[in-house]
């Protein structure tokens, strides 16, 4: 990474000045350029191209399509009941998954943060679902919800949750729970890993000091653990919300958005529009709206956090 290096004890030639200054300034860019080129070429350019589709009529099977349609897609969208339903489903899917992933992930992290016999092995086992390819988990969970080949409906019946074993994935009122449960299973490890990392970076002396000051375990949790975890929790929750809202794989595999669109979320609706109806223009318009909504969500969370930390001081 050096352009001009000189050895020996000769006086430096003045032309070296320029090249060293220049190489010093350029150096960081040399390190980041591969990533930058890749991201611009494979993510940013396609994004812009994709956004432009939102204003065009692009249907793969229609040779006359391709024209500019202005805001037409967005106008259709405003009155598209399926889309509006998908928006509501997205909120339900996202927060339903998130609450349990986070709550259970935090509990798991707290459990793993104490030393006990076999912790290493247990940790590896409970983190395993994260490594399972998502469509495989989807298929497997769909299988387990099926009363013919899966145990879950029978268990729920014996627990009195169901009158008789049936497949909740075909019940419009309950179907969303199927993908959500699969998603919880898949997502707990992520939260557990992140929270465990944050827990382990809390200095032990703080707990020792607090216990000398007479704090009970619960008081220590409230006055030390939670404040320390708060920044990590805030960031992870925000990133995960966005990620889950965009995450259609499990739904596409398990229910395809059905029955009767009861599990259709925006991300899976985009998928349906693009690859079942082959209407890329409309799909891009939906995607653009989703992107804007998610950006707005992220920015408002960041703004809220900033406002809160400022009022603290």
């Amino acid at each position, binding site marked *: 990474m050096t352009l001009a290096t000189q050895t020996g*004890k000769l006086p430096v030639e003045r032309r070296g000045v320029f090249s060293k200054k220049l190489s010093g300034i350029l150096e960081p860019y040399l390190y980041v350029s591969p990533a930058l080129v890749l991201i611009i070429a494979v993510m940013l350019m396609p994004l812009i191209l994709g956004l432009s589709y939102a204003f065009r009529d692009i249907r793969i099977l229609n040779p006359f399509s391709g024209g500019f349609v202005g805001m037409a897609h967005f106008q259709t969208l405003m009155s598209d009941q399926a889309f509006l339903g998908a928006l509501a489903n997205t909120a339900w899917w996202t927060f339903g998954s998130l609450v349990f992933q986070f709550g259970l992930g935090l509990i798991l992290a707290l459990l793993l943060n104490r030393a006990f016999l076999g912790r290493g092995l247990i940790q590896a086992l409970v983190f395993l679902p994260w490594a399972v390819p998502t469509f495989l988990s989807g298929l497997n969970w769909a299988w387990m919800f099926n009363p013919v080949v899966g145990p879950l409906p029978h268990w729920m019946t014996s627990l009195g949750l169901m009158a008789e074993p049936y497949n909740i994935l075909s019940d419009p009122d309950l179907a969303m729970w199927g993908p959500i449960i699969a998603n919880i299973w898949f997502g707990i490890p992520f939260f557990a890993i992140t929270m465990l990392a944050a827990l382990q970076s809390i200095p032990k002396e703080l707990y020792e000091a607090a216990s000398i000051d007479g704090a009970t375990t619960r008081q220590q949790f409230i006055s030390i653990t939670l404040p320390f975890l708060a920044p990590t929790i805030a960031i992870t929750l925000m990133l995960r919300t966005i990620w889950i809202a965009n995450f259609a794989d499990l739904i596409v595999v398990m229910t395809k958005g059905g029955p009767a669109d009861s599990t259709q979320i925006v991300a899976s609706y985009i998928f349906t529009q693009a690859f079942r109806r082959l209407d890329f223009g409309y799909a891009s318009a939906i995607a653009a709206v989703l992107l804007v909504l998610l950006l707005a969500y992220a920015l408002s969370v960041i703004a809220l956090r900033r406002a809160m930390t400022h009022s603290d001081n």
Partner: protein
Amino acid sequence: MASIEIANARKSYGAVDVLHGIDLDISDGEFIVLVGPSGCGKSTLLRMIAGLEDITSGDISIAGNVVNDLQPKDRDIAMVFQSYALYPHMSVAENMSYALTLRKTAKEKIADAITNVADILGLSALLERRPKALSGGQRQRVAMGRAIVRKPQAFLFDEPLSNLDARLREQMRTEIRKLHRRLGATSVYVTHDQIEAMTMADRIVAMHDGIIQQVGSPVEIYDHPANIFVASFIGSPAMNFLEGTYETKDDNGADGAGIRLSDGSLVAVLPARGATNNQAVTLGARPEHITIAPDANSGLAARIDLIEPMGLSTLVHATLAGKPIKIFTMDRPDYAVDSTIHVSFDMEKVHVFDTKSELRLPPVIEPHPGHRD
């Protein structure tokens, strides 16, 4: 070995100026100590010499060659970091030989150099260990060893002893001095500990807010501080300062010089160069230059606040003219707190500073001209 010249070197981070034009010539083989309060720019200056920070403007030369645009590796200097910066994945021997290996030194030569240096520093038994398995003092030695094996043109030290306990620090202080005598290498040593500065330096460079305040031998800096900052920073316990006005007549109207303190009492001083009647001045007196009078007939009245026995000596805290002062005495006084004593100032040793510019106004006639070298 080499000399180092720094000419009008400046450093700024964006709009913040950290160093404002540093001029300093370090001769071949000299041991220079940079001292100053936290944040004054010592590390920055040292890192500029090392090549780890760019120089915003000005020149730095080593052995007569401008090195502004040389990479650290091409400057032939060694540095000991405050954190030691030992490579955690290498053994002690590998740590010390890394630089030589990079220079493609012959294997046998490296082995000789390592054995030799390990001997000097008492590391022979530890050569195969990883830094993790060493005590703080041992790590410090390895860091020293890593610098020494290279026989560089100059050594740079950034607070190398600040992580050690007092006893070890004292011991390493002498060892570094001995090593320097033995190797004769040009050294620049950064510390904020003024005792290290006093005991180790050939010359002290006192810095404040990115400006060199004074350069001189430890005794010179101690005895003839250039301004209030240097006077207050060097010396422990610190110098006492009492504000007042300069007067050219004493209480009886005779010609002389004195400083009228806020309570109206007059302290006699040697006539100060450039001082005029009624000028606002500050009297500076080191604790050892104030004596407690045996009776109430002479000197100024002061009230005892605290007696601090220090073993060899005793430090008396008192209030004089409304100001707290410290008095150093070899006696073992047993005054009660709140009792009144009388003190007098050693006229030849106290300093007069201009309160406004904070500069020292030296006596018109130096009392011991022979002292300067």
